[in-house]
Every structure is written in C-alpha cells, then in structure tokens.
C-alpha cells in the first residue's frame, strides 16, 4: 500500500515539477523576448548612440609638406596646420538660427549658406563648409559647439615673400599638392606620406583616445634653393617699376652666378601673389623667364664674333667695311641703322652693326657656326627641370642659306628663353666655360663645358665694356665703381607671323665686374609703349639699378681705384667734424 501511495505521490510530484519547469522556461522565453524587444525597438537609438560613442577606427595622419628655403636659410614656403570646417548634414538637427548666423559671420560666408548646404546635400555625411580657417576662428567655431559641425586638420601653404617668389615657387592646390613651379617640379620630394593610427572616436566623431600607431607619417623633404631673397627682391622691384613706367606688357629677369651657374634671382611681370587664390590666372603665374621664347636679336652678336675669332675667320684687330650701310645677300638685304663705315671688332659690338656680323658670318661654314650656337645651349633646354621649361629652336645648318646664316648672326632664326640667354653668357663670363644652370645651391658646377678659349672670352668682354661706355648703346647700364660688359638688343616682335613695325622687345645682358665676373644678368622687357624701346634705354637701367645694389649686398670689391687726387678721409674723422 505504502508503495502504491508513494507511487501516486511521486506521480503528482513529477506533474507539478513538469508544470513548474515549463512555466519557468516560458517565463525565460518571455524575458528574452522582452529584452529583445527592448533592445531592438525601445532602446535602439540610445544604444546605437552609445555604440557610436566608442568607435574604434583607423584614421589618416597628415604629413608635413617640406619647406623651401633660400640660399641663406630664409623660409620661402612653409606649411602650417590649419582647420577646415565641415558638416554632416544628417546629424545637423534643429539649431537655433542665432548660432548659425554667428557661425556664418565668423567664417565670413554668405548668410543662409549653412541651411543651403544642409538642404542640398541630404544624403551625404561630409560636406566642407569653409576650408582653411585661421586657428583663432577655429577656436571660436569649436566654442559654438553646433551638432554636426566639425573641424578637420589640414595644412596651408604660406609664401612669406608673396609675389616676389611667386613665379619661381608656384603654388599648391587646396589639398596641398604642387600645381606650378618648384612646388610641382619637386612634388615627390616635398610631399610627405600620410601615416595611419587607430583611434577611439565618439559620436560627434571627436577623437577621444589614441590607441596605437599603425604607420607613422613621413614628412616631406625640405628644399634649399639657390635664390638669394635679397637679390630676388631687388630684381623684382626694379623690373616691376620699369614695366610700369615703360607701359610694357611683360618682362623677365634672370641673375646667375657666373662661376657656379646658380640662379640667384629669377623674376617676371606681370606677377601674382601665391597666397591669394583669386590671383591664379595663367598669364600671371607663368614663369616667362623659363617658359617663353623670343628671338634674342643683337644679344647674340658677341657669340658670333667669339666663334669667328676662335675658329680663325677673323683676327683680333681686323676691320670690316660696312658701307653703304646695307648688305645684299641674293634677293635679300641686311640693313644697319645708318652707315657706320669701317668698323673694328670692338666697334661692331658697340654700334651693333648687322652688316658687319653678317659679313663675318658668311665667311664661316654654316655647320661650324651652327655648332658654336648649339654648344652655347641654343635649341636645347637649359635643363633646370622647371615645369614647361622651353628648349627654344635653332634652325638646322642643312636648311640654312647664306641669308639665313646672316640673320642668325644678329639673332633672328633662333629663339630662346631669358634663362637660356643668361646661361649662354656664362661662357663669356667664365673665360669660355659654359655653365649648366641650377636652382639648387652648389659650390662647383660639375657639368660645365668649354666653348671658347679663355683669351677670346676675355677679349670679347673687353669689347663689351665699350658698349656700356658713354657713347655706347647701353651707357644707362653703367654701374658706379664697377666695370660692366654687356650687350643690348632691340628685337621686332613677331605678330601673326610677321615682324611688327611698332612692337619691340628690349633686351640687355650684362656681366659684372667685367674684369673678374661674378654675376650675369639678362633682362627682357616686352613691348614698351611709353616711347622708348631701345634695349639700352629700357632694359639697361634695370641692370644698372639691380646690380649697383647687388654688388653692395654681396660685398664685391669695386673694379676701379678711387681718384687718387681726392683726399682720403676716414669715415670716423668725417663723423667727428
């Protein structure tokens, strides 16, 4: 009996237990379901926000762009961190309009732009509102704390010397990539490699903690260039003033170190300020001194005489009869300004006689003359590595007739850039050795080559000193206290394939001091419209003004001794009295 009773009891016990267990499981299920509903439906937004708050992501770390310095270590281009303001239209809620107006006036953007940007980009997460704002503005934007408005770190390029080095350095675009000039030419060197790091971000995409570095950023390399910013400034100022006073359309100037081929200054007009993006128009930012070519005219005459001397077609002291002031070659005529009569070599350069050089040129075989011109770098790029650097054209000797050969002797039928012209003159300046040109600082030029004998080169320089004398074509290029060797050029411009009758290029190329050359400078003024257009009158004075000061800046000894009759007064004594 007992066992039976017990059996029943056990039966009921198991039944109870089963119910209990089933109930428990059901409860558990309900709880799970409830939790799921609460997670998925009720608390979804809150939880997602919380999740966003602790987001671990990998972000880019921007690298510094290399700086550019001049030869004395003055910064010419520097990158500074700035902030850009961007917004996430999806996260921008209802903001009181007062704060938006405040933001807009802070960023100096038109009223209502904020709302417009939000409305026009509904599907986007990232829209720039204003790029590259100053640090102080960024601070104030941050203080406003508008939801959905963020700041990101970028670099802005500053050019402390502004328009003075504008053409040379070029500029970068808003993403800090080189677009023109040296910035473009040495983009690979200057630009850095961005790094990566893992960070924890909050819901506002603010970085709240750095976790680890994946790859460290590699900053770009700094560049030191051969430019001397003091000379660059002088050259720019004088060229600008001259272009203005002569109402010329453009101009270029190149200054080279005669011994090393380093470019000390290269300036152009019209100019532009690389710090102001509104200024960026092609005709303004083109570095004409390197990219534009022209016919060098009379400035090549010294090369012809030097070639003829070296090759033995004329002798030192020889004379050429230029009467009656013109020279017939086949059906063509070469003319002089007037009949100069019989001229010695020195006077040929001083008077710049086309007839005389044509006669000398026609004594030379075309191939030999061509080879001298070619070795002076005509028809070849100067090899600076500047973007769109011109190589110019020198017609082939096989296609040359004797008239063309004659025109080549006074600088037509060949074209070159101001840089190439200045470079060619290094062959006269450094006793017959043509230098390569570079924008980098260097002690010696490894890539020079001899074109003329030392004797011929110094001989030509002595002749060119007469050009700058009182009755020479370039007496306005004189520099007090220094001997100058130089040559002027006044070239008719080609307009629509014809030589213009009233538009000229005024040129001057000079070497200073003539006895022991240190600097070479070429100046080109394009289409002076204020009356004067002769190279000596327009370009010559620029040389004189720039060089006079450059000599003092560089501390180069004057070429002439003082007048011994004047009593020597020491500066200190003079001061006392």
């Amino acid at each position: 009996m007992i066992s039976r009773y017990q059996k029943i009891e056990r039966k009921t016990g198991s039944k109870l237990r089963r119910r209990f267990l089933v109930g428990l499981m059901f409860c558990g299920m309900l709880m799970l379901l409830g939790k799921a509903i609460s997670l998925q439906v009720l608390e979804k937004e809150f939880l997602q926000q919380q999740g966003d708050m602790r987001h671990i992501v990998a972000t880019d770390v921007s690298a510094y762009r290399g700086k550019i310095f001049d030869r004395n270590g003055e910064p010419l281009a520097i990158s500074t961190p700035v902030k850009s303001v961007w917004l996430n239209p999806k996260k921008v809620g209802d903001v009181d309009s007062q704060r938006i107006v405040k933001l807009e006036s802070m960023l100096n953007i038109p009223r209502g732009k904020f709302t417009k940007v939000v409305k026009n980009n509904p599907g986007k997460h990232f829209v720039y509102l204003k790029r590259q704002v100053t640090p102080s503005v960024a601070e104030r934007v941050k203080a406003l704390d508008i939801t959905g408005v963020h700041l990101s770190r970028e670099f802005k390029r500053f050019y402390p010397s502004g328009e003075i080095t504008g053409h040379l350095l070029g500029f970068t675009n808003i993403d800090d990539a080189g677009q023109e000039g040296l910035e473009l030419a040495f983009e690979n060197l200057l630009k850095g490699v961005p790094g990566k790091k893992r960070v924890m971000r909050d819901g506002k995409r603010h970085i709240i903690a750095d976790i680890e570095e994946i790859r460290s950023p590699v900053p770009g390399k700094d560049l030191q260039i051969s430019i001397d910013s003091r000379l660059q400034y002088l050259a720019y100022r004088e060229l600008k003033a001259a272009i203005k006073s002569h109402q010329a359309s453009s101009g270029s100037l190149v200054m080279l170190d005669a011994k090393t081929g380093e470019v000390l200054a290269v300036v152009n007009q019209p100019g532009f300020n690389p710090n102001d993006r509104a200024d960026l128009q092609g005709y303004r930012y083109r570095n004409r001194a390197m990219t534009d070519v022209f016919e060098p005219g009379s400035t090549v005459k010294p090369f012809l005489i030097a070639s003829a001397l070296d090759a033995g077609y004329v002798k030192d002291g020889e004379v050429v009869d230029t009467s009656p002031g013109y020279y017939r070659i086949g059906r063509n005529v070469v003319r002089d300004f007037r009949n100069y009569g019989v001229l010695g070599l020195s006077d040929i350069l001083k008077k710049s006689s086309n007839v005389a050089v044509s006669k000398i040129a026609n004594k030379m075989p075309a191939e030999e003359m061509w080879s001298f011109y070619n070795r002076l770098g005509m028809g070849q790029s100067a090899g600076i590595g500047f973007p769109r650097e011109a190589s110019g054209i020198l017609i082939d000797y096989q296609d040359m007739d004797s008239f063309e050969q004659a025109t080549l002797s006074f600088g037509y039928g060949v074209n070159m850039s101001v840089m190439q012209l200045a470079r060619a003159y290094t062959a006269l300046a450094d006793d017959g050795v043509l230098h390569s040109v570079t924008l980098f600082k260097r002690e010696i030029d490894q890539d020079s080559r001899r074109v003329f004998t030392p004797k011929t080169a110094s001989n030509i320089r002595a002749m060119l000193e007469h050009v700058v004398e009182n009755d020479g074509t370039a007496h306005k290029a004189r520099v007090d206290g220094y001997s100058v060797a130089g040559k002027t050029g006044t070239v008719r411009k080609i307009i629509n394939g014809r030589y213009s009758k009233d538009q000229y290029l005024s040129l001057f190329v000079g070497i200073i001091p003539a006895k022991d050359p240190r600097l070479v400078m070429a100046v080109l003024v394009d289409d002076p419209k204020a009356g004067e257009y002769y190279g000596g009158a327009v370009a010559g004075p620029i040389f004189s003004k720039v060089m006079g000061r450059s000599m003092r800046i560089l501390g180069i000894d004057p070429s002439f001794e003082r007048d011994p009759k004047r009593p020597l007064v020491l500066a200190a004594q003079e001061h006392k009295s």
Partner: protein
Amino acid sequence: MIKRTLLVVVFLGTAVAVVYSQYQARTLFIEMQQLKVSLDRYETEWGLLQLELMTLSEHSRIEDAAYSRLHFITPKYDDIIYIKQ
C-alpha cells in the same frame, strides 16, 4: 613535476610581461600623441609668427622706414670710402 611547475611560472611570467609591455606601449603612445598635439600648436604658432615676421621685415617696409622715417640715404658712389686691407 618541477619542470612542469617551472614552465607554468615562466608561462605566467611572459603573459604578464606581454600585458605590461602592451600597456606601456599604449601609455607611451598616448603621451606621444599629446606631445604631437603640442607640437602642432607650436607649429601653428611658428607659422603665425613667421607671417608676422614676414609682414614686419618685408623689404619694401624696411626700405620705406629707412628712407622716410629714419631719413637714411643711399650714399653716392663718390661718398663711399673703401678701406683696402
């Protein structure tokens, strides 16, 4: 038995060391980031100072000050006395 105990101890030791070095790496990294932030601030300041310097030391400004405010003149060549050594 001793060998096994030793292995366990070494194992635990390296595990702790790994954790520790990881922790140290993070601390150092955070410190580095903070320093980078200050470097950034200095760079910004340097840029601003550079700009200021550029405006103040502009060649044309110096020239103008020398001529008009300080009444400097460029000496004529004849007025310059060179002292030869």
